[in-house]
Structure formats: C-alpha cells, structure tokens
C-alpha cells in the first residue's frame, strides 16, 4: 500500500512536504495505524510521532488519517485506508514541531482557563466529599476525556480563534466541573464563559462528536453550559 506522510524538520527543511512510501503489510493483516507507523520508522528512523500507551488511553498519538482526526493506536487500517492509500498528517490547526508532532500549548492554555479542578469553599470534611450515585452519574460521558485534542483540532471555530474560543475539549471539561455536585464555584465558572467567544463561538458543526475516539459528545455538553447560562440569567 501507499502511505503519504507529512514531513517537516524545522532544522533542515525550508517547508513541509509529503513523503510517499510504499509498504507491504506483513501477512496482509489489518494492523493499527500506529503499528504501520512503526513499520515506517523501521524504514526511515527520522520519522517523528508521539505514542505511549498504544491502547487509546494516553491520547498521545492523535493525528489526521485520510482527513479524519483519531488515535493511531486504536484505528485499524481497514477503517481509514481508501484505494490502498493512507495520508497521514499532524492534527490540523496547531503549530508543527516536527513531522506528526504538534505543539499543544494553545490547547492546554484553553484547558487551564476553565480551571479543571474541583473548587469547594466549604470546610473539608473528615472523610471524602460524598456524592450520590445519581450525582455521580452526571459526570458520565464527561470525565472520560483523555485530552488527545482530536476534537478541538477538528473544529473550525477553534482553528480561527484558538486563543479565544475554549474549544470542544475544554468546554466538555468545563461542563464536567459545572455538573459536579461537589463543586461550589458554578456561578464564577459561568461568569468566565459568558462572552461572545469562549462558549458562543460554537456553531454546532459537530466535527468534535464525529472524531472523538472515546465516543464523547462535546456539542451536547456545550448545549448544557448554554442552558445553565440561560437559566441563571434574568
């Protein structure tokens, strides 16, 4: 099969280019894209990409495979290869450090902005703060986010305003803390989000839902934030 890989080494290349590599898959098996990358790296050790857990938990190997963002380690070739060709590019919209490795600073800045930790101004109890099973269930579909950035880098609103729009990933996390029964900073959190960019730059394109490797739904979470803003407004 033919693999076309985005290559860029700022120390030696003037501009990024696509490198075409023909490769035979041993035994014709349906391997994961990450395994394919290892085969490519055996051929050309200068190829750079991030990987760690190789099982869709760490979120390191988010990349664009034939036009769709996803995690290379849990994406089988059969799911992305078309006409025996695979085009691998770094996540769109973020600066490239090298080859498939992107600079995630902007993405983490947005995550930091939403204060991704419990805030509770009541005195700490002797034991942990308890939660009813129903309250705990509110966090399902939110806490599973692994911050791989597949969603935010698939979002046109995030491409145009990565410094102002929090992005689907950050907003999913924002709602995770807004929905937490143990958090007491709901009002302050909402006040931080009520501007024309942070939440409202979401136009419901839903690329985020389409690409999330964990099957989460940031658009739904954004809708819930909007409803919270509406219901506390007068």
């Amino acid at each position, binding site marked *: 099969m033919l693999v076309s890989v985005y290559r860029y080494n700022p120390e030696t290349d003037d501009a990024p280019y696509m490198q075409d590599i023909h490769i035979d898959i041993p035994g014709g098996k349906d391997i994961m894209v990450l395994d394919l990358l290892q085969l490519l790296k055996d051929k050309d050790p200068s190829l750079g990409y991030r990987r760690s857990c190789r099982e869709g938990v760490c979120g390191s190997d988010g990349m664009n495979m034939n036009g769709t963002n996803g995690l290379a380690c849990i994406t089988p070739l059969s799911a992305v290869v078309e006409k025996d060709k695979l085009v691998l590019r770094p996540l769109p919209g973020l600066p490239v450090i090298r080859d498939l490795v992107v600079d995630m600073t902007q993405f983490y800045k947005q995550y930091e902005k939403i204060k991704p930790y419990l805030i509770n101004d009541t005195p700490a109890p002797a034991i942990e703060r308890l939660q009813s099973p129903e309250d705990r269930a509110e966090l399902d579909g939110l806490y599973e986010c692994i911050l791989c950035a597949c969603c935010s880098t698939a979002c046109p*609103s995030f491409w*145009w*305003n990565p410094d*102002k729009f929090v992005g689907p990933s950050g907003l999913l996390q924002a709602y995770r803390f807004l929905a937490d029964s143990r958090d007491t900073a709901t009002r302050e959190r909402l*006040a*931080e*989000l*009520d*501007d*024309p*960019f*942070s*939440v*409202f*730059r979401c136009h419901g394109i839903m690329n985020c839902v389409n690409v999330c490797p964990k099957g989460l739904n940031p658009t739904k979470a954004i809708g819930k934030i*909007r409803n919270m*803003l*509406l219901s506390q*407004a007068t």
Partner: protein
Amino acid sequence: MVTSITSFGRSGLYDWMIQRVTALVLVAYTVFMVCYLAFGDVPTYEQWKGLFEGTAMRIFTLLALLSMAAHAWIGLWSVSTDYIKPTGARFVFQSVCGLLTFIYVVWGIQILWGI
C-alpha cells in the same frame, strides 16, 4: 473571559438570544409574505399600498427590519472576527457593515412611512 467591545451586546448569551429571537421574527415575516403572495391573486398597486398603509403591517415590517439589522450585525461581526485577523481591516469591515445597516434601517423607515 474574553473581552470584546465591538459585539452587539458584549455578552455572548445576549447576542445568542437576540440572534435566535430575531430569526423567529424573520421566519414569521417571510412565512407571512410568501403566503400573501402565493395564495392570493397578484396584488394590484392599490392592494399592495393598502397592505403597507395599515399600522399593524407597519409595525410588523419595522420589527422585521430592525430584526434583520440586529441579526445581520451579530452574524457579520462573528464572520469578521473569524476570518479577518488584522485589526485595522476588521474595523473597516465592521464600520462598513454598521454604516450600511444604519442606512438600510433609516431608508426602510422612510419607504415604509412614505407610502
């Protein structure tokens, strides 16, 4: 919190709500006009003039006109902040949009009450 001084209401929620309310007004006006033109005979000049001389129709049309102005401003402001990154060029674009919107509103009122 991102501060913005050129948006319609400065609050994202406010802009979002205005955008939806004005959209409903525009839908109502469009449905009315389409029904009026599609289900009746082709109006004569007198009938057409008569329609717009009524106070209710003037109120409805002015509401639709103002709704379109607010709706267009919020939408174009949003487009300009997405695609026009140099501040000077964006300010010029927004100024032209604002001026045109204002002209259309005044002109529209003049036409509406000039019948």
